[in-house]
């Protein structure tokens, strides 16, 4: 059984032939499209390492069947930087030591971008911690992550104000 689906991945339209409907979005990205920035941690939706944006919303790519996402727009960690210029969330994670080993970081960053877009946290660190609780960091870089999200949110808001002006 072969299924053909269309996806826009990091701005690029792709047609993907799936020989097996069991392929998750995570495995499609990593194993078939060579986008290995998205990490496989638990593969059960419990750790958040596989977080990507689908149609602008953060989800666990390990718990989504690729076949069910026909027509979707997907953004992964590889799609963030503009050439050498890092995305503000990426820059803030470096600035605030928001990681140690780095394995959970792509998922943390994609989740942070989703959180900022959702706009429910304000500048309350407690709300940021709560809304980032789907991303586990076993190095325990949570304080740096929270600071990075707060700063990146501010940077992005300022940029939006400038762009609107």
């Amino acid at each position, binding site marked *: 059984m072969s299924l053909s689906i269309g996806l826009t991945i990091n701005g690029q339209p792709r047609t993907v032939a799936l020989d097996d*409907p069991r392929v998750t979005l995570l495995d499609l990205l990593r194993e078939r499209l060579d986008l290995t920035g998205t990490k496989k941690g638990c*593969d059960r939706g419990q750790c958040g390492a596989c977080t990507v944006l689908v149609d602008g919303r953060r989800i666990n790519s390990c*718990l989504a069947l690729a076949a069910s996402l026909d027509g979707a727009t997907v953004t992964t960690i590889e799609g963030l930087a503009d050439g050498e210029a890092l995305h503000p969330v990426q820059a803030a994670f470096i600035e605030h030591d928001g990681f140690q080993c780095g394995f959970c970081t792509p998922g943390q960053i994609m989740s942070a971008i989703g959180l900022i877009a*959702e706009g429910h946290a304000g500048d309350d660190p407690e709300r940021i911690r709560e809304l980032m609780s789907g991303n586990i960091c076993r190095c325990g870089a949570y304080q740096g992550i929270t600071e990075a999200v707060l700063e990146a949110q501010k940077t992005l808001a300022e940029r939006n104000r400038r762009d609107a002006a």
Partner: protein
Amino acid sequence: MNRFDYIRPVSVPEAIAAAAVPGSAYLAAGTNLLDLMKVGASRPERVINITRLPGLDRIEWLPDGGVRVGTLVRNSDLAYDERFAKTFPVVAEALLSGASAQLRNAATVGGNLMQRTRCAYFHDLAGACNRREPGSGCDALGGENRLQAVLGWSEHCIATHPSDFCVPLAALDAIVEVEGPHGGREIALDTLHRLPGATPEQETALLPGELIVALRLPAEASSFSRNARYIKLRERTSYAFAVVSAAAALEVEGGTIRKARIALGGVAAKPWRAREAEALLEGKQATAQAFAEAAELALAEARPSGDNAFKIELAHRIVTRALSLALEGTPQAMPALPASPFPALSGANHVI
């Protein structure tokens, strides 16, 4: 994961016809189904993707003030819908206390209602589980069972239903609209999930091929909007299933309780509505004493199914706490930690 045929119907009748074949399963976001398929606890031969069915992703307000929520509405979209959260704050709080932001962005209303137990033995193919494999036994009895049921369990199954969302829905008399091979019908949410008895594999009242298409909350449920809370005890601050939880909703007039709604989560194979406790409160002064008596009554029939007698005491306390917090009033804004029994740490200075 087992091999399966992947079917993409474009209409509800087509989906129902496809699901009439034995071995079929409906797939929405898949946040629970795929997880179960990965470990082999669920092995559908046909997976019917319902996410493209038209008209099932809307929140519609009814002329009488009730609401009809399509089965494909995402958990986060419902919880953050301003009018919904204002009208049914206890439901929004329960939704936001469940899972993680990523899962709430994907998971659907119907999927939440249909989620399976988180009992470890249900997920572990090496263990006996009557729910997964009828007649095989129950390894949870006599096993690791501190989080298992304390109400409505049987010697065949002591699993609990994991949903937060369903707890206030049971309290507020939500109605589930289903379509099936023999037409449409309505099921009270309180009777959707079944207690195990001798047939724990029959988890819901749905007949083969039936599909949940919408959820309705009646207009009367909005009368509790000023005094309603969902409170949930977890083993970590966030992103954990309830050890025990309770939804409490009150209509209070001059210190007297006119109406009360109480349901518990994490205690049984279904969200546990405590009607006798509600009746006890109605017409009474809203006092700590009355709330303690109501909690006592809500748990009168509770008994441990193993190493979990502590859950009865915890449930008693969480009912009392939910009632007293409901009396204090629904918070103006959603708490930073929805459903937490602990005071928020907002403003804490451990992040500079």
